[in-house]
């Protein structure tokens, strides 16, 4: 039964961090090129626009949910399972979500990269 709890929490981490990453990426695309904006309008505008973006706020909230799910997962399962499983599944989930929701062109090169990094992270974090 504990395994079910652990895997549910892992899936919650993956889901929340994928949602968070997608929302943050969308927010920053809406804010625009930070370097150019910084030169044109100054750091105050950059920070203000970023913090005032609703997608950014929802993204940070989703990241917070992911963090607390991690704490739950760690209270049920071993860190040697939770950390690599959550990290590597997040990479794959992000590639899928970026393609669907951000309309990024996830070509063969990026799929291979995501899979290699996911496998590598699983080995390193385990």
């Amino acid at each position: 039964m504990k395994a079910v709890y652990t895997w549910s929490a892992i899936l919650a981490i993956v889901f929340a961090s994928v949602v968070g990453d997608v929302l943050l990426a969308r927010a920053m695309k809406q804010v625009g090129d930070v370097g150019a904006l910084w030169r044109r309008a100054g750091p105050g505008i950059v920070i203000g626009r970023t913090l005032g973006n609703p997608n950014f706020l929802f993204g940070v909230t989703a990241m917070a949910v992911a963090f607390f799910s991690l704490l739950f997962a760690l209270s049920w399962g071993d860190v040697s399972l939770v950390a690599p499983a959550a990290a590597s599944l997040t990479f794959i989930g992000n590639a899928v979500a970026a393609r669907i929701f951000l309309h990024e062109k996830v070509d063969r090169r990026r799929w291979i990269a995501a899979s290699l990094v996911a496998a590598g992270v699983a080995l390193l974090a385990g």
Partner: protein
Amino acid sequence: MLSHGMKQTGSISVHHLRGVIFAVLNPWVAVGILLLLAFFAAYMTALSWADLTYVLPATSLGYVLLALVARFLLHEHVSPLRWLGIVLITGGVGFVAGGPSLTEHHAALPHAEHTEDGNEPLAVATAKAPLLAEDTRNGAPQVRVTGKL
């Protein structure tokens, strides 16, 4: 740094929330939090320039760096399986870095912004070259059918 600082402050219980304030005042924890904020700012800036599927694998180089620091500065043992993990991540990042950093949507042309920095028109030109190749390969289905790619 955070873990080092938190080990110095000792465990925090729900009943002693003042412990949290002491933890934040610990220089290790404070520097750790500042570095995390710096990471977040840099991550957000990178996301304003490039695709999520480009930035995310690139940030995973942090895992590699962590393992190398553990091996060469802290003299920890890094198992062969972990070395394999390092190789895989490095290969993956190399793979994604060779491609275009940003999906060109019709409205946005952010690559033009980088030329403002001057000095590196050649780098911009070479960065664009694979982009164009990539675009023709994936953008036009009829090419993919006739050309064996």
